[in-house]
């Protein structure tokens, strides 16, 4: 068993570290988050270096690399600045649905624009009052002679309003014997008539990215808008979530590492009661807890990414990694704030946004209860 990164992986890691040193700026990050504006130039630079969509095939502007490499990039971006990191890593939110389930024409149309930073993508799954059960989706896609007509309202769609296209989950067959078979997935151009967006306002995190309630009012799409297989929408969402959860685990590891390093710097210079904070015994144990949890989360995330790249789709492992890493990021960033004391609560000292971003990952793509359902489902089967 070899736990070391390959030469090429180390080079990618170093390239991202050099990139964030040159491109990420604290004040820029704080200002953009406050103004809800996007770091377009930073994205352009990241795309030039091939950091976005590195796991896409080369013919679709990717590098044909694995989820592992995508995770390494996300980890390093978030480590330097969790908010800028999420803004870059989530521009292609939902694009993997096209990557994994799309036909060649769909991939050709939608993947290069994401990798080149020309369009954002948005997964429009969630509906208001739905809670954690996506099978309750009410949006419909009605089959017509020359395509589909989509109607429904999606809530809190990340990149809603700024995305070039949406990946939409709809009911296509109310008569299917199980709720799982009722749903299908579509890829829909954002500029089609009948699509309207209402800004969802500020959120705990990712304010550089837009979020909107997106309404589809009898939106006519062609037959080629169906993504993957009719009636397999729920299974495809779950497969996409498995991949996304691994990425989120890696982002959480980066967030935790970044908050931890900030806290370490701080406790080495901050003095109270005539001693550096780092000299207090309780600080030692806090540091030990943080370090141990990060080590555990990273190992978990890497193994989940590696497993995925081996072609094994392990839903339980992905959910475990996401749950563990997200809880780690929340706990570590929480402790970083505590070590900073009053400064930790202040925006300009940054650790508070690491905490908000960590909690966002914790809730995004299923909070802990959903992850436990997924994990248990793989072990003891579905609850009937």
């Amino acid at each position, binding site marked *: 068993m070899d736990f070391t990164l390959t030469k090429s992986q180390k080079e990618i890691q170093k390239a991202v570290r050099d990139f964030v040193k040159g491109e990420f700026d604290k004040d820029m990050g704080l200002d953009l988050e*406050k103004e809800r504006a996007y770091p377009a130039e930073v994205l352009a630079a990241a795309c030039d270096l091939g950091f976005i969509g590195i796991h896409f095939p080369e013919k679709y502007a990717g590098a044909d690399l694995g989820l592992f490499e995508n995770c390494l990039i996300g980890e390093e971006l978030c480590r330097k600045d969790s908010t800028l990191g999420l803004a870059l890593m989530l521009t292609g939110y939902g694009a993997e649905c096209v990557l994994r389930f799309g036909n060649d024409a769909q991939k050709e149309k939608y993947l290069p624009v994401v990798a080149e930073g020309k369009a954002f993508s948005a997964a429009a799954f*969630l509906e*208001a*009052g*739905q*809670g*954690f*059960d996506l*099978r*309750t989706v009410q949006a419909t896609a009605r089959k017509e002679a020359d395509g589909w007509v989509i109607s429904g309202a999606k*809530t*809190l769609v990340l990149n809603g309003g700024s995305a070039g296209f949406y990946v939409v989950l709809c009911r296509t067959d109310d008569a299917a014997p199980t*709720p799982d078979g009722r749903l299908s997935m579509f890829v829909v151009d954002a500029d089609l008539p009948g699509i309207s967006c209402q800004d*969802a*306002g*500020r*959120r*705990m*995190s990712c304010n550089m990215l837009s*979020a909107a309630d997106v309404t589809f009012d009898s939106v006519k799409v062609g037959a080629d808008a169906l993504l993957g297989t009719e009636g397999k929408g729920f299974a495809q969402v779950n497969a996409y979530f498995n991949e996304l959860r691994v990425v989120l685990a890696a982002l959480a590891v980066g967030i935790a590492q970044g908050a931890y390093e900030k806290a370490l710097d701080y406790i080495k210079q901050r*003095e*109270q*009661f005539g001693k550096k904070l780092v000299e207090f015994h*309780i600080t030692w144990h806090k540091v030990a807890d943080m370090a141990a949890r990060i080590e555990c989360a990273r190992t978990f995330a890497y193994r989940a990414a590696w497993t995925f790249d081996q072609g094994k789709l392990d839903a339980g492992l992905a959910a475990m990694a996401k749950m563990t890493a997200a809880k780690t990021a*929340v706990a570590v960033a*929480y402790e970083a*704030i*505590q070590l900073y*004391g*009053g400064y*930790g*609560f*202040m*925006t*300009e000292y940054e650790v*508070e*946004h690491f*905490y*908000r971003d960590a*909690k*966002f990952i*914790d*809730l*995004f*793509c*299923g*909070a*802990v*209860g*959903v992850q*436990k359902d997924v994990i248990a489902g793989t072990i003891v089967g579905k609850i009937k």
Partner: protein
Amino acid sequence: MDILHYTEAHEAFRKRLREFCEKEITPHVEEWEANHIVPKSAWKAMGREGFLCTNAPAAYGGHGLDFLYSVIVAEELARTNHTGLAAPLHSDIVVPYIVSYGSEEIKKKYIPGCTSGDIITAVAMTEPDAGSDVAAMTTIAVEEGDEVVINGSKTFITNGINADLVVVAAKDPAAENPHQAVSLYIVEDGTPGFTRGRHLEKMGFHSQDTAELFFTNCRIPKGNILGEKNSGFIMLMEKLQQERLICAVMAQFAVEIMVEAVVGYCKGTKDTTGKPYSKHQAVNFQLVEMMTDAHIGRVFMEKLVADHMEGKNVVRETCMAKYWHTDLTQKISNQVLDLIGEEATAERSLILRGWRDLRVLPIFAGTNEIMKLVVGKMSGL
């Protein structure tokens, strides 16, 4: 047997305050959060209706009511889902310094205004390099004739922008023992040399006008001292019990409101079979655990309120409660967000504000680490 005995008068007061909050506070909260400050007119309205300084003696213009009224104010304000109108800090933490240690003249001069809401107060202790370590403060006060000259800076001061009167802790540079060097002074808004720095941006408490304060050759009359010179630490210690109890009370109410909200959410949200979340067993158990935590917290808090009202020394126990209750807010608010999930990531869900605001509770009024230090010392560890 009830631990606390709310009379009809208490309940009438609560009803009146709740109606006031619904009419005069809640409708403005979004605006105050966006503006990062509560207008002074809201403080005056609170004062006009008799909701400020309920505990201050009637002889000096306060309302002379028991501490239960303070508890009621804290509870009803917690329901308004904002922290800007920090009346408990004003009425039950700052003004008591004036009540207990101010001269007759000082008390007569300021308490009526504090009660009417014309004077908003703040207490300035924390400095950039002296947070937990209060004795490390570098703000100095030097007597010159009939005046005292204050120099230094303070930070993280709640009500810092709105404050008309600040109780400032400053050191006597001539004193040798740093624990017998601190005095408390009253500095009024408008005093030359007293300026406000930045309005600090924070993770939460957005409607709270937390600010830096600067004192540059700030001259105040000698009579503005509270208590004896260089006895600041003793006064601070004496007031700790109520200050920390107020923190625990605020934390307890925040927990109860959060639990109430999430129980409502889980009962109202249904899965694909029409079964509410609250009937999913793991969710059900988690709600039960949260309700149990809230109940334990309530009993602990009420016992301390009762002891405090009887005049018992429960400094050690209130330090325990400050840390325990404020830590509980973190556990509960995180669990609440976990149960609601992604929809709780939007500010419009309102529950998110609670999570953001509460994060400072384990830090302010003495970090929870400091609370444990104090309890350890007082327990002979």
